[in-house]
């Protein structure tokens, strides 16, 4: 009786261990799925200035819906500029390629990178990028959330 119980318990432990082992295996991130590629063209999904929503204003006033930024392996290009971290094309860099929480944009011909926090919330299964910056007075804070066009 006692032996049976011990055997059953042992079996349970082995079973549990194997289940846990399998799960742990799946949780380990693949080393290649690293650099959070942002290659592609992005448009503005939402934008605030000092916490006030800008996207509900007519696009004829803000032109935010026309803005496009394309990231390609360390370079970016801008179409239809709006108040943003940078005004012209250039290069971008993460503080940590593996787990970035900062992105720096350096316009061509400029020596000064402009830094923003880099957040990637997921909305309806799509990755977004949220950038926070001050293109004018430093107390005017803008938050743009970008979504991929394609």
């Amino acid at each position: 009786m006692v032996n049976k119980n011990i055997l059953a318990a042992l079996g349970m432990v082995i079973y549990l261990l194997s289940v846990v082992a399998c799960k742990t295996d799946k949780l380990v991130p693949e080393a290649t799925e690293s650099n959070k590629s942002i290659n592609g063209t992005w448009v503005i999904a939402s934008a605030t200035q000092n916490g006030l929503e800008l996207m509900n204003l007519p696009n004829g006033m803000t032109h935010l819906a026309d803005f496009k930024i394309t990231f390609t392996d360390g370079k970016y290009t801008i179409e239809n500029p709006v108040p943003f971290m940078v005004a012209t094309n250039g290069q971008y860099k993460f503080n940590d390629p593996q787990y970035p929480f900062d992105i720096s944009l350096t316009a061509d011909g400029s020596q000064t990178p402009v830094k923003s926090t880099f957040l990637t919330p997921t909305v309806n299964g799509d990755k977004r990028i949220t950038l926070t910056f001050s293109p004018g007075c430093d107390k005017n804070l803008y938050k743009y959330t970008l979504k991929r066009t394609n």
Partner: protein
Amino acid sequence: MIKRLRSSRKKLLRNFTLGMLILLLSNCEFFINSLDQPLSANAGDVITAKLDMNFQTNLGPYTARIVIGILAPRAWKLGQNQNVKITYSGDKGTGTFVPIPSNVVAGGAKNGENWATRMKNRFGIGPNYLDDMEWVPFWTTSAISTVPNENPHAVFNIQMKVGVDGANTSVKLGYVVCNDNDGIGDTDITLSPVKFADCLEVKGTGDLVDFCNPSLTTLNPTRALDNDYQAISYNNALVDTKLKGIHDLYICATGHTSDGKSIGICSQTDDTKLMETNPNQFQITFWPRKFFNLTAGQTLTDMDYYITNKAGTARVGYGNTDVPFKIKFVCE
């Protein structure tokens, strides 16, 4: 096994009910007996506001930190550089307040807002007219304990450096007091009474930033550069102007650049049209760099503007005169 589960479920239920009861009862009512605050100062002065308070506890015992929020122009940066020093003294002894970090969720916040956001959502800008203000939250460095039926009295001494931006400003500062457990309720004002001072005139330089009085046009943000979005609101119901009753309004502007050029944008198009946000309330938001078609090397220093009708024949300027409204593109 099942028995044990059942008993632990019972225990959970009992603890939960007890917890809810404590939550419901953990009310400590605050009363602002008086607010004493100067009504004039020079930019950069330190002024002292005194809040005379009682906090009444019918039940308890309670232990909580006291929270004070101050509503002020954002340009004053009250939350930074120790621009505010608050001490209290009274029946519970003496102590000091420190700023509440922005990652602390406010008591009573349903959506995880921090204290500054919670206060802004609940009380807005009070009786002020320009929405370029912020609530800056502070709390006691340690919790204060009370026993049932206590009604301790305290005076909060708030020292504030006003007008650090150096601008001529008139503003009605606001004060809210609560404890960090109860926070700020949606309806019950006894837990978080709020008081707005009369208009404080701060003498500085430049055009008056007037939070106290309605004006024909208001700017948001009140301080911006040509690379910011600038919103101009126009109140077509404040006084009788040439544009009274007209709903098709435009802006006629002249921008001045640092290289000495003047750029006029005065045709009545979609780019210059104001939208009616509320009856007789109009607004236009624009990016000055694009509005005036500046080149990469150009900077806008200031602009003059009028509000006009569609034909451009009737125009309204500053104070309903023929002098244009002015915007200076500076941060301080």
